[in-house]
């Protein structure tokens, strides 16, 4: 295994494109190193993107947030502006693993590990975040939900990697929230995750709602029906109930060591409801 730590996006692209299929991107490494140790992957080349300045920055301009691919959860959690704009995204990042994992784990790593249970992805999808992807043919941008195509599978081409996440401008009276269920209070992989992003008009009616669920299908799913159940309502109990039913109905989970189909389906609705409640409360408190 060869290790390279290029200092530019172009350098990384050149290495990854030349590395062939056995090249891997290293950001926080909290998934990659476990897979290396377990012999699940045996890359010939590892390209560490943390020395590329752009991947380590959090920027905000004109209300639009950009988070570098290799920003760690701990760094994001300490960023007051990011937290104020996208509390759900920040809390989803901060839920990954322990304090120690937080010191390393990144948004891009969490996304590109391509696990359906990734904590940040439902929050990113609910936020309608976009990935900035660099590759041999230059830079392109795709919605976060288009990056993973199945467990362990990405839509990225040879030599491509995620450089940053770009967020839309946050409308007034809007907020997001993320909740996940795990059997313990910490240190588990999400059994179900729910990201909700809501915007309200000044009359208190929901004008936009995105509900995304994790660990209930081969990839994180954006549940349009769940969002629609809230739009036009005040997110009252009846609307929330309908939203929960839509969320549960969209679930296509599996039975595995972390949960059953029945359990995941039920709890998806519960978490979506609770997350929507938090998002609505936050939106109300925002200006």
């Amino acid at each position, binding site marked *: 295994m060869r290790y390279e730590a290029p200092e530019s996006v172009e350098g990384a692209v050149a290495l990854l494109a030349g590395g062939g299929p056995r090249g891997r991107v290293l950001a926080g490494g909290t998934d990659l190193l476990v897979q290396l140790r377990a012999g699940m992957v045996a890359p010939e080349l590892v390209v560490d993107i943390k020395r590329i300045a752009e991947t380590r920055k959090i920027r905000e301009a004109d209300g639009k947030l950009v988070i570098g691919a290799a920003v760690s959860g701990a760094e994001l959690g300490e960023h007051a502006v990011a937290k104020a704009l996208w509390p759900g995204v920040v809390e989803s990042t901060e839920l990954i693993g322990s304090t120690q994992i937080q010191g390393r784990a990144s948004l891009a790593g969490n996304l590109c590990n391509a696990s359906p249970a990734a904590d940040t992805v439902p929050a990113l999808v609910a936020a309608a975040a976009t990935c900035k992807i660099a590759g041999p043919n230059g830079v392109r941008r795709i919605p976060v939900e288009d990056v993973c195509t199945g467990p362990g599978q990405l839509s990225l081409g040879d030599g491509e990697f995620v450089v940053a996440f770009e967020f839309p401008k946050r409308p007034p009276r809007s907020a997001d929230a993320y909740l996940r269920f795990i059997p*313990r*209070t*910490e*240190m588990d992989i999400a059994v179900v995750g729910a990201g909700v992003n809501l915007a309200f008009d000044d009359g208190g009616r929901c004008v936009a709602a995105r509900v995304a669920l994790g660990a209930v299908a081969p990839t994180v799913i954006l549940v349009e029906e769940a969002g629609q159940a809230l739009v036009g309502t005040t997110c009252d109990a009846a609307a929330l109930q309908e939203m929960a039913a839509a969320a549960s109905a969209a679930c296509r989970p599996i039975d595995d*060591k972390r949960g059953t189909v*029945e*359990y995941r389906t039920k709890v998806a609705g519960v978490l979506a409801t609770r997350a929507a409640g938090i998002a609505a409360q936050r939106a109300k408190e925002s200006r």
Partner: protein
Amino acid sequence: MAANSHGKTNGSTRWVGTRPVRPDGVDKVTGRARFGADVHLPNMLVGKVLRSPHAHARIHSIDTSAALALPGVKTVVTRDDFNDLPSEFVPAGEMLINYRDVVRNVMAREKALFEGHPVAAVAAVSEKVAREALARIKVDYEVLPHVLDVVEAMAPEAPLLHEDLITAGVEPAPTTPSNVAKVVEFKLGDVEAGFAEADIVIEREFSTQPVHQGYIEPHACIANYSEDGQAELWCTTQGHFVVRGHCAKLLGMDVSKLRVTASEIGGGFGGKTVVYLEPVALMLSRKSGQPVKMTMSREEVFQASGPAAGTRVWAKVGMTNAGRITAGEAVLKYQAGAFQGSPVQPGCMCAFAPYDLAHVKVVGYDVVVNRPKVAAYRAPGAPQSEFAVESIIDELAKRIGMDPVELRLKNAAKEGTKAAYGPTFGPVGLVETLEEAKAHDHYRTPLKPGQGRGVASGFWFNIGGETCATLNLGEDGTIALVAGTPDIGGSRASLCLQAAETLGVDVERIRPLIGDTSTLGYTFLTGGSRTAFASGMAVIEAARDMIRQLCERAAKIWDIPVDAVEWIDGEARPAGSNAGEFEPLSLADLARLAGKSGGPFVGRAQINAQGAGPSFGTHIVDVDVDRETGRVTIERYTVIQDAGKAVHPSYVEGQLQGGAVQGIGWALNEEYIYDDKGRLQNPGFLDYRIPVCSDVPMIDTVIVEVPNPTHPYGVRGVGETPIVPPMAAIANAVEGALGLRFTDLPMSPPRVLKALGDARVPKAA
């Protein structure tokens, strides 16, 4: 200092019962302490084990030639390197073990009997080369049907693990083999008559999952076998003398030629009482002529080292309307893992031990399944059977509207009670723990809405056993204490306190050491809650031996008869005015004069400690349950236990707290998850969910002290009992919160939510 103890002292002791900083403490907070994997030897190789990917498979052949051809590979061992051993039962960690099975558990012979069963091992110049070598070993397996469940394994058509296993304990002996290794039965009185006296009889079936001890330090050792047939072994173990015995047997060595040093041990809880890597490392070292270090990965620890037995338990208890328990009956089916020897016997004996019952019948089955061989885990066998009984006791109390502590008090075993397992109890402290529970602030504080409170009691025998200790008096009057029981939770501190108490010297003047197998006579392992008791007795005995020598020497110096000398407060004094007027001779004085007056002082003891006092405990727990997700949260927890005498109360509290939290894990989330091929799906701390810091509240403790008459300071072992009550206590609390009785562990969120859902659906009449 730690302020959460309500330790009550009795008698007057100067050192026993105090809380000095442990003597090995600084090494452990600076990273200096050397654990199993922390030693490097010059010219050292790395050993790695190839493990079976199959739960059950016949091994037709093993081809190691490609591995041996790899540069950097020094040697390979397989079943061919170990002589087969005849069936011979010897006392080991938890109960008898059979060397025929030990040699097969260490390295598979005819068959691989569980996923992770060692099949071959290599020694190579690096971890990387060793891993590559493992990949080159070709094993021809014939995969066989496997069985994991204890009840399925007992069925006549179940796949047979051992074609020659004939059930013991059945008359006449069966003529065909089965997976039932043994049937045991304990009877007292006449249960039928007892149930006839009852107004209420409740019977239920319970199940518990195998749970791992979960020590944070994986198994590790370094073997250094010399060309002259002698060897040194450094390893993490609860008993290096036991390791020496097993390894010598498996390698055909004289025990005197094998010197085993116990490293600092990073947790054991019973799981480090047996050998896994050690004989393999010695064999690799013997064949390669170089030191070999082996460590298990966490995955290997889960796949191939001992869990506690998963069980199926049926229990039945009868009671009068007045709350008198009239009879108890149980059938216990315990998984042994791949080889016989589950702790079903102690499980049977403990099931009804907390109660004064005239009629008891318990039948136990020891059953082999295609899982790793179980190892001892804190009070082995008892938590599973007492979970069943303590759950039913709670239900009985609720049935007649009696407070569950009151019901237990009404039926509690006390001095003079004929224990359900046979003997008559001496002084025991169950009643005292129950009285403390009743009076405790926790028990009297009203519950918040939606919460439930549970109580349960638990019992463990405790043991003594073969134990040596030496006290070497230095020329400056300080003392080196040498014990043979590895210190797993602060026992060096408690041994020093007992020596200081007996000698009447400052505990700071005593420095402890766990001696290697060549420095002391045979000493049984740290387990069975025996160390503070048995090594304590040995240390006291050694101190008395030294006092005898010191008094003799003072008599000689003063030229008076030895019986005219007394040892008081750390110095020799003339006994009364008749003995003469002499300035007392302190330990330091005598140490200084030692050479000139006849030679150094060494106090020794080699004992087989008997009369360990049993220990009872009672736990109180409050839970909250998230009705929408099924998550159970432990809101408050109190452990009350009889310690006889708490030598170092902080470490007694630590045992109670640690045992309780392990029990919380057992109750709520810990389980082994296998796929349909018998492969473990959660061999890591990510999905084998032991409690993390944020899962639990502070664990309050109350130490009750009902002295054990056999021990000079009244000490009883404390380590095992605290893991017995939690599962029932929590199940009883969940019942209180939800009105639902959980009989299957763990009470994990999916199980709880499912039960809540099922309960909402009205049952068909």
